[in-house]
C-alpha cells in the first residue's frame, strides 16, 4: 500500500484544476477544497514517491505547498460552556489555529462544564466527544482548578485528551487523565496575538501533531481495512447527493473513519451498500452508525485483524 503524505496547497484559483487532475492521475486524494475569493486552499494526501511532481506543479502555479500533519484528523475543542467567558477567546483561537495544519475542528460547549464543584458532563456530550480523534479541553487560569477540579470532565472520554490552560509551570503528569498539557493559553478577553500566546498555540499544534502521529503509528501495526480517504472518494462517486451539502466539510475525515454530513435515516442504506472494486461493500469493512452530531452518519472503519483482510 502506497504511503500517503498530507499537504496543504495555497494559491490562486487560476488553473488549480491541473493540481486536482494530477492528484487523480497519481492516486492521491483531495480531502478538502476551500475557495475564498480568488484564492484556493487544497488539503490533499499525496503518494510519498510523487511529492516532487506535486511540488514542481505547485511552483509553476505560483502556489505554496506545505506539510499539513493534522490532515484527516477531526478534533473536538471542548470549552466548559459557550458563555462569553470562554468565547470567542481563547477557545475559538485554539480551534482556528488547529485548522492551520489541516485539522477539522468542532467547537463543543458543555452544558454544565463551568465551575469547580458543580462542573459535570452529560452522557450525550461524552459520546459526542468520543466520536472525534482528539479532544482539546480549554480551561482557565487557576492551577488549583486545572489539577484538582476539572479532570472529572475527562471521565468517560476514551480518545486522547489535550488540556490548555493559563499556568505555564504545570506538567502533564499533574493533571490526572490528560495526555498533554499546554500552558499560556488560559482565559483571556482579547485575541491571542502576543508573542508568547502565539508561541503557545504553535506549541499546541506541534504537540497535537505528535499525538496524531502516534495514533497513526499504532494503526500501522494493525492497519485499517480500507483507507478513510478511499471511502471518502467512493462516497463522492457513488452518492451524488453529497455535492448538495453546504457544510464546509461534507465528508470529514477521521484517523479511523469518516463523518458523512447527510441525514442518517435517508442515506444510511446507500452508505452501507457502498461498493469497492474488490467486490466488498462498506458494511463489511466498517461500523456505520447514527452520529450524535445533528443526525449525521458516522463511519468507523474496522481493523484488518478484525475482518481478516484489507483492501
Amino acid at each position, binding site marked *: 500500500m502506497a504511503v500517503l503524505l498530507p499537504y496543504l496547497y495555497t494559491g490562486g484559483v487560476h488553473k488549480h484544476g491541473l493540481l486536482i487532475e494530477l492528484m487523480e492521475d497519481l492516486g492521491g486524494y483531495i480531502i478538502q477544497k476551500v475557495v475564498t475569493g480568488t484564492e484556493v486552499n487544497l488539503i490533499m494526501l499525496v503518494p510519498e514517491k510523487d511529492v516532487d511532481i506535486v511540488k514542481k506543479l505547485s511552483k509553476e502555479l505560483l502556489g505554496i505547498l506545505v506539510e499539513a500533519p493534522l490532515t484527516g484528523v477531526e478534533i473536538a475543542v471542548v470549552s466548559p460552556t459557550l458563555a462569553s467567558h470562554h468565547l470567542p477567546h481563547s477557545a475559538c483561537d485554539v480551534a482556528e489555529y488547529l485548522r492551520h495544519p489541516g485539522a477539522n475542528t468542532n467547537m463543543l460547549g458543555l452544558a454544565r462544564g*463551568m465551575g*469547580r*464543584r458543580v462542573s459535570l458532563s452529560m452522557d450525550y456530550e461524552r459520546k459526542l466527544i468520543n466520536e472525534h480523534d482528539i479532544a482539546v479541553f480549554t480551561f482557565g487560569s487557576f492551577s488549583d482548578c486545572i489539577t484538582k477540579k476539572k479532570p472529572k470532565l475527562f471521565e468517560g472520554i476514551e480518545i486522547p485528551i489535550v488540556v490548555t490552560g*493559563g*499556568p505555564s509551570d504545570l506538567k502533564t503528569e499533574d493533571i490526572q487523565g490528560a495526555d498533554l498539557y499546554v500552558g499560556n493559553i*488560559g482565559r483571556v478577553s482579547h485575541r491571542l496575538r502576543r508573542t508568547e500566546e502565539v508561541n503557545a498555540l504553535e506549541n499546541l499544534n506541534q504537540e497535537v501533531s505528535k499525538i496524531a502521529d502516534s495514533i497513526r503509528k499504532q494503526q500501522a501495526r494493525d492497519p485499517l481495512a480500507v483507507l478513510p480517504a478511499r471511502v471518502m472518494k467512493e462516497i463522492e462517486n457513488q452518492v451524488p447527493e453529497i455535492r448538495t451539502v453546504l457544510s464546509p466539510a461534507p465528508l470529514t475525515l477521521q484517523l479511523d473513519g469518516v463523518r458523512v454530513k447527510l441525514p442518517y435515516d435517508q442515506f444510511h442504506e446507500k452508505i452501507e451498500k457502498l461498493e469497492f472494486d474488490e467486490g466488498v461493500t462498506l458494511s463489511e469493512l466498517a461500523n456505520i452508525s447514527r452520529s450524535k452530531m445533528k443526525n449525521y452518519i458516522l463511519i468507523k472503519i474496522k481493523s484488518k485483524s478484525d475482518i481478516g483482510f484489507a483492501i
Partner: protein
Amino acid sequence: MDSLETFVVESAIDSETEFYRKIIEDNLASLKLAPAIGRIKVVLRPEDSLFQMAIILRDVGTRVTTIDIADVETKPVAGEVVISIKKEQYIPELLVKLWERYGKANISQPDRWTVTISTDKPAEEAEFIKEMLIADPRHRLHENLVDFAIRVTPEGFRVRYHLYKGNRFVFVASEETLEREWIEEAGAMLDELMEGGKK
C-alpha cells in the same frame, strides 16, 4: 481622583494574579469603563471558590437634558420645532425619545446638526423638549458595571452579592453559599480604598 489611580489584584499565586489583571483590563477597555473607575481592588481565592471586588467610582456627570446638548427654536408659522445640536454624542438617544413622542413621519433631519419636528403646538412642545431627559450616565454606568462584574468573575461562581451605593460598588461571587465574612472582607476592602488605598 484620577481614573484607575489604584488598581490592585491579589491572589495566592503571582502568575494567576497577572492573568486576572489582564482580563480585568480587557473588560474595562471593551466596556469603556476605565474613565469611570477611580480605585479598584480584586481578591481571588480559587481554593475557596471566592471572588471579591471593591470599586470606587469617579464622578460620571449629571443627567443630560435636551437644552444641555442643543438649542431649541420654534417656528410658529411653519408649525415646527427646530433642534440645533451642539453635542453629537447623544443624537441616538434624543432621536429615540423624539420618535416615541412624535412618530418618525413628523421628524426630519435636513443635516447632521439639525432635527425638525412638525407639530400643532410648537411653543408648548419646545418647552417640553427643552426639559426632556435624554440620557442618564449613572444608569448606563450601573448596567455596565454589572456586566463588567459578571464578565470578569470566573464563570462557575454563580452565587453573587452586590452593593451599589453612591460611588461605591462591592461585588462578591462564589460557587458555594456566600459567607458573611466574605462580604465583610469585601466591605473592608472598600474602606481601605476609601482611605486612599494608594500602593
